[in-house]
């Protein structure tokens, strides 16, 4: 028999504080920004098409109990290296995007494997480890891109190389593949461009995630995510399962970064990946996800709310203070703030659950003692 849960306003508020906060911010900022609904919708749909894939790549490590994968930036770096090669080889359009994705796979697998192995050595501290890994691998990325490309790794075109003969220019031009996915099937009902192919790719990834949850490996990941010791006792190879989840996430992050950058049409070679993890994680948390639980619905809601705020905040900043930079500061402040808030709330919830568990145990022992 199903137990009917009574509605608790405090619990609802506590569980949905971040999305509610963002809805309020967007509702206040939208009239101040003075944007037409068509323009706003166009921007949101465009950003959904280019960002959702990246954010979906965060779901599998959360399922495996590894928290928010700050190490997804490693996949973004792999995607960027693949794009540099494809640009240099002059492979254009959708074949260029597909080739970049294929080239990014071995790099992402290698980086994901390294990240997963290190995370297994620091269980319970995966997020901070992933964050620091970004800096470490970021240094390696700079070494490869700034010194090895053009000197050891052949780079043919002068338009990609730095004038000194080795290293990659600060901006890589992706004009030959700019919005090739977005524009392939792009109906414009009421002036709103819908990148259908991007949404088809996103739908395929969503279906993959739903299917994957039901597979043996997916079930193992959920078991590991709930309790590692119990999972180990049940015969699951915990370390291997965790490594696979990080590898899958890194590979998808590489694909996501390629989809993201083909939409923009160029990328800053040395800095494009630095904020990827931060903004994706912030968007996921804005959608109501937590460190231990996230769904596809959280991804979609998060992208809509986070990017609505991104679009309206600078213009609202101009309307309120006359300075667009206020809006820029505001959205960066909110991005970092929302991650902090989510982490604090996660810790509070964990402690509360622990103390409630302790109280229940004490009560049970007391009752047992009275009966005896």
């Amino acid at each position, binding site marked *: 028999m199903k137990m009917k849960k009574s509605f608790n306003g405090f619990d609802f508020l506590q569980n949905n504080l971040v999305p509610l906060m963002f809805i309020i911010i967007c509702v206040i900022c939208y009239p101040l920004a003075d944007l037409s609904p068509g323009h706003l919708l166009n921007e949101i749909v465009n950003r959904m098409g280019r960002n959702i894939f990246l954010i979906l790549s965060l779901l599998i490590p959360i399922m495996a109990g590894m928290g928010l994968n700050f190490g997804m930036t490693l996949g973004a770096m792999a995607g960027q290296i693949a794009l540099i090669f494809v640009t240099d080889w*002059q*492979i*254009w359009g959708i074949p*260029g995007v597909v080739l970049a994705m294929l080239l990014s796979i071995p790099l992402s697998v290698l980086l994901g494997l390294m990240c997963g192995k290190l995370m297994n050595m620091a269980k319970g501290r995966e997020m901070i480890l992933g964050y620091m890994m970004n800096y470490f691998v970021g240094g390696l990325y700079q070494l490869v891109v700034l010194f090895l490309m053009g000197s050891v790794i052949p780079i043919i075109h*002068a338009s990609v190389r*730095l*004038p000194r003969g080795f290293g990659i220019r*600060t901006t890589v031009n992706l004009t*030959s593949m700019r919005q090739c996915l977005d524009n392939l099937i792009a109906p414009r009902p009421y002036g709103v461009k819908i990148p259908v192919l991007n949404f088809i790719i996103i739908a395929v990834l969503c279906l993959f995630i739903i299917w994957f949850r039901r597979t043996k490996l997916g079930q193992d990941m959920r078991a590991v995510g709930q309790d590692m010791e119990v999972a180990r006792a049940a015969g699951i190879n915990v370390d291997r399962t965790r490594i696979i989840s990080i590898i899958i996430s890194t590979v998808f992050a590489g694909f996501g970064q390629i989809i993201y950058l083909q939409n923009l049409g160029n990328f800053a070679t*040395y800095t494009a990946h630095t904020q990827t993890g931060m903004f994706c994680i912030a968007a996921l948390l804005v959608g109501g996800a937590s460190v231990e639980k996230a769904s596809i619905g959280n991804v979609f809601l998060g992208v809509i709310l986070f990017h609505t705020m991104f679009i309206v905040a600078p213009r609202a900043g101009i309307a309120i203070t006359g300075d667009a930079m206020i809006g820029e500061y505001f959205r960066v402040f909110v991005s970092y703030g929302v991650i902090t808030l989510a982490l604090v709330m996660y810790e509070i919830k964990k402690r509360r659950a622990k103390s409630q568990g302790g109280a229940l145990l004490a009560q049970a022992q007391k009752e047992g003692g009275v009966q005896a």
Partner: protein
Amino acid sequence: MKKKALLIRLAAVALCVALGAVMMVVGRGHTIYLDNKTIEDYQGQEYKSFERVNITVPGEDEVIKLAKRERDMATCMGQSFHMTVEVIEKKGDEPRVEEIDLKLPYNMDGIIVNLPALLAGLPEEAWMTEFIPAPEPEDSSEEEPNIGDEFGMGEDLGMEGDAVA
């Protein structure tokens, strides 16, 4: 069971490699420079530029129109290039329409096609040359990307002890 898994993995890798190879061929981009210029001396013969040439390339929005001694360009993905050429050889002549298919060499990014030589049926070396862009003036501002000092400490890391002294 292990052998089957290994075979599946090898097949997946082979599929990825094959797909990559196909993408490298079908996605190879070329820029075609179409010249309507006189070839003055090819084996002792002159091939004069046409009065007017109109070129239609599938996928390009506009028709390329070339007067005497003019050049324009089209882009092409893959190793074959198709165009419809409408030629008026001399003033007052009736236009002649020709469908042309070219096989493009993989290793050339920019390819110059001389139309008078091509339409005269000369061999490939007479009408096809590689376009080599002039070297760009060096931009010293891009010599060293500004990276590596995210904490803004400059050269003073406060580790030498001079500040304390």
